[in-house]
Structure formats: C-alpha cells, structure tokens
C-alpha cells in the first residue's frame, strides 16, 4: 500500500520514565516518529525496548513525561480526561496479544462494546457487530463465547471489535504471538485487507519476524530509542 503524506501520529522527543523501586528506568528516551494515514507501521525490537510504552502513549492511555505526541493533530496529553476518553473511544481501535475478550459475552456482544461505549443502542450495536463479524469470516459464530472459539477465531473477533466503530487508528500489540504461523498469517492478511485503508493507520507492535513483510514501514527500537525506520524488511 502506498503511504499517504498526511500524518496520523506525530511524536516528537517523547520521553517516558518509570520509577522502579527508587530507580528511574527510561522507557522512551526521546522518540521521534510519524505514522501516516493509510500506513501499516510496525514497531519491532527486543523485550523491554519501549514498544508497548510507545503505543500506550500513542493510544492515549499513558501520558509521556516530556515531548509531544499528536494523534490526528490532537495532543492527547493536554486534553482533559473526559475529552481524551471520548477521543479514544471514537478514534482508536485496539487489538491485544491476549485477545482480551470479555469471557462472559458472546462474539457479537464483545464486538459491539466500542459502539456501546460510544453511546449506540445495544440492538443497533449488535446488528453492526454481526456484520463486521461476517467481514472477518465469523458470521456463523456470533453467539459463541470466547471459550468456544480457537485462538485464531478469538483474534478475529478482537479485530472485528477494533474495527466496528470505524476508528482512524488501530493499535495492535503482538497480534500474532499467541497464534501459530498459519493462523498468524491469516490474521495479518485480514488486518491488511479489512482494517487498512487510506483513512486509517495501523500500528503493530511485534516480535514476530514472520509478519514483518506485511509492514509498509518498520521502526526498530532498542533501549527506549528508535534505531532505524525502514520501508522493507530487507533493510532491517
């Protein structure tokens, strides 16, 4: 996919430190990163290099200590808490490593959650959720509980949940690490096919080198810094 020039995310000198038993641990040591609309950006690197912290900051669920991170031109850190919640609910979709589906809700109900958070009535939300489930190939499993679905199917439900409210940014944390190779590829195909288009950007944090090929650009992180941003896996 051809990367668009308009930036979905623009991070400048983002710093984040954690207090670990009195010691300051620098998770992000001045990150500069732009993610464009229509782009699938992968954040790769060893464990503890700050990938998850960075997507947490990008998604507005963690505040940086210094620097700025604009998402669609809005600086989330300076938003009021209520505004930030609304912004997140409308504009960001999440796909998690551990799927994080609510175990007592069936697939349709799980997928409808972002719509309900955005104030859509349950019946309408569930109708739309059923349609999105069809898009991800799970039209017939709408009434199934997460425990009745395989890992790949659960991740597809999670993808449907991330897409159902048409967010402009989707953040995925290790979406394939709990899946086997073939299922991981299927999930990535699905993400690229269904989730990615010109009005939307995807950020994927991953260790899984088998899926690097799906990225438009790859940012390699190490020790709280971005080493390198490349547009091809061969250049890593």
């Amino acid at each position, binding site marked *: 996919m051809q990367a668009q020039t308009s930036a979905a995310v623009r991070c400048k000198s983002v710093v984040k430190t954690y207090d670990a038993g009195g010691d300051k641990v620098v998770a992000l040591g001045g990150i500069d990163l732009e993610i464009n609309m229509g782009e699938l950006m992968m954040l790769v690197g060893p464990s503890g290099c700050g990938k*998850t912290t960075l*997507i*947490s900051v990008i*998604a507005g*669920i*963690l505040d940086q200590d210094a620097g700025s991170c604009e998402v669609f031109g809005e600086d989330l850190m300076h938003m009021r808490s*209520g505004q930030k*919640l*609304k*912004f*997140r*609910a*409308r504009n*960001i979709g*999440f796909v*998690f*490593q*551990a799927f*994080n589906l*609510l*175990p*007592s*809700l069936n697939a349709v*109900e799980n997928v409808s*959650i*972002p719509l*309900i*958070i*955005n104030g859509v009535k*349950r019946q309408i939300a569930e109708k739309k959720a059923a349609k999105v489930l069809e898009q991800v190939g799970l039209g017939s499993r709408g009434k199934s509980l997460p425990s009745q679905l395989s890992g790949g199917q659960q991740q597809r439900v999670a993808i449907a949940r991330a897409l159902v409210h048409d967010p402009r940014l989707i953040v995925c*944390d*290790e979406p394939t*690490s709990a899946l086997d190779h073939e299922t991981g590829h299927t999930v990535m195909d699905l993400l690229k096919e269904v989730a990615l288009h010109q009005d939307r950007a995807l950020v994927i944090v991953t260790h899984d080198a088998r899926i690097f090929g799906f990225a438009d650009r790859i940012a390699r992180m190490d020790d709280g810094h971005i080493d390198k941003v490349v547009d091809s896996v061969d250049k890593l």
Partner: protein
Amino acid sequence: MNHIALKMLMGDRGKYLGIIMGLTFASLIMTQQPAIFVGLMTRSFSFISDLGLPDIWVMDPKVQFIDDVKPLQDTKLYRVRGVAGVKWAMPLYKGLLKARMADGTFQTCNVIGLDDATLIGGPPIMLEGKLEDLRRSDGVIVDIDGAKDKLAKPPLTPGGKPVPLKIGDSLELNDKRAIVVGIAKTTKTFQSQPVVYTTYSRAIRYAPRERKMLSFVLVKAMPGTDIPTLTRRIQEATGLAAYSQKEFMDLTWNYFMKNTGIPINFGISVTLGFIVGAAIAGQTFYNFTLENLRQFGVLKAMGTSNWTLLRMILLQAILVGMIGYGLGVGLTALFGYAMRNTIMAFKFPWQLLVFSGAGVTLICIFAALISIRKVIKLEPAIVFKG
C-alpha cells in the same frame, strides 16, 4: 453498559453464587436473630398486652417489670376508685404458685386472680369453656400450652405421650383443689410457665397468706379523660405508681434490656452475622472485581469513563445485594413459619426488614467501594501486558 455489567457478574457462576450466599447468610442472621430477640422480648410484656381492657395499671412504685410483683394493701383499690376520672378500678392478683401434678411432681404456675364480679383481666381467647365458668366451685382456666405440656397428665402407657389437661380434670394448688373449667389461648410469657386463671378471692385463698395480697389495680378511665393526666392524678392521690399500658410495657422491656444479658447475646450474634456476612460478601465481590480487573482495563482503554465503571460495579453490587437480601429475609420468614407452633419465640415486624435491608446495603456499599477504588486507580495500560 448495564447489560455488560450484568453479564460480567453472572458469567462466573461460582463467584456469583458465592457473593449471593454471603449476603443471604448476612441477611438471614440480621433478620432471624433479631426476630427471635424481638419475639423473646415481646413475651416479657405479653401478659400486659393480652389485657386490652384497662387503660392504666396501678402498682407499688418499686415495681420494675410485670413479674416483679410487690403487693399492695387491698384498701388501695378503694383509694384508686375514689380518684376523679376513674370509670372503674378492679383488683388483679398475679403470683407464682406450685401446682401438684397427678404423678406427685410440682410445677410452678403463674396464677392470675380476676375480680370476682366482672372477671376483668381474663384470657384473650377461650378455646374450651367460658370465662364465666370461673364462678363455678374451685374453677380455674388453664392456658393451652400449659395444659398440653407442663401440666399434662402422665402417659396412659409407659413411654407414651402425656395426656393434656382437659375440662373436668383437677389440680392441687398449694394443697387446695382446683377444677379445670376452661382452656384458653394466651401469648407465651417470658418464663413460659403455665398460666392459671381464677377469681381474685380464690387466688388469694390458693396463695400463702400475707398481709398484702393485691398485685395490681386495673383502671378504666372515664370517656374523654386524658390518660396521662389521670395517671398523674392517681399517683398524687394514692402515692402508687400508675402507668398506661404502653408505659408499663416499656418499663418491662427496658428492665429486660438493662438487667439481662439477652440484648448483649443477641447483639453479638447479629454483629457477628454482619461482620461475617460483610467479610464473605466483601471479599468475594472484591475478588470478583480483581479477577475482572483486566476486563475493566480493556473497557477503560476503549474509552469507558470511571463514572460508567463505577455505575457498572454499583449495579452489580445492588443486584447481588437485592437477591441476597430477598433470600435471607425469605429464609427467615420460612424459619418463622416452621417454628410457629413451637416454644421458639419469633416476631418479625417490618422494622426488622428495614434494619436488615440497611445492613445488607451497608455491606454492598462496602464491597462496592473497595472494588471501585481498585478500578478507578487502575492503569488502562495493563491491557498491553501479556
């Protein structure tokens, strides 16, 4: 989001039932034990409440409760009758006398002597015979519980059931003959002794002779007379204590509250029930929230506000609270129904429903608060931890 909250709550059946059981237990203890307590305490003044006719009870000023009889001189009756505003004043004897049973054993009875002419102060319900039958020679009326149990005759066959006392049977009260002429239903008394009604003159004949024999004077006020004014007037004119029925019941209640261990014992039971119920329900509810913390984190990350999460947790707490309360109160009512014909004291007024409702509400608020605190402090970034 309410739908999601309820699904989250009921999704884990084990935890859900655990919370409800804790609250049911707390609610049961908080209603059943006070119901027994209230039942027991009501028995302390049941003799007063059974006597609906008189407006005022007159007695020695040192009397502390209904069974604390300090006899008066018979002449006091006439002094009371002379007070302006008194429609009538009747004597009442109340004392504990030993009845000799057919098998030679003795049973202490509560003997009530009623005014010979009017029989005022008689039992509220006659099951067999008539109150007027007391005028028959040596006639006494016995309460049904006493007739069936403590005053019952020995079994006809060894190992058989005792034979209830019936009309025509005789007793010996202080070596004097008494013939049963009626069986009455009375409210059980605190000491659960058999109650034997007879005439005043016969009662003082049964009782060991003393200089003073009159236990109480029962007074009816003239129509339109203010009762508090009349009680004050009787006190001033006779130097005796005079109480309205309600005041005498309160005096008796307060005596038992202050001078017996009953309130403390039941208070401990109820407090323990509350603490154990709160601990079980609070801990289970808190654990339930802890186990769902990640799910709350997911909702928070997706844009759910703390206020919405708070409402969800409150809804969960209210639902389990209502179910637990309903089951607890229902079980208490069943317990009361099952025990209705036994010696067990049990009274379940609406105030107890309010009391246990408030208790369960407190437990739910406590359980919800500790859970809410955890959820509000929750960092949504936990959702990115594997």
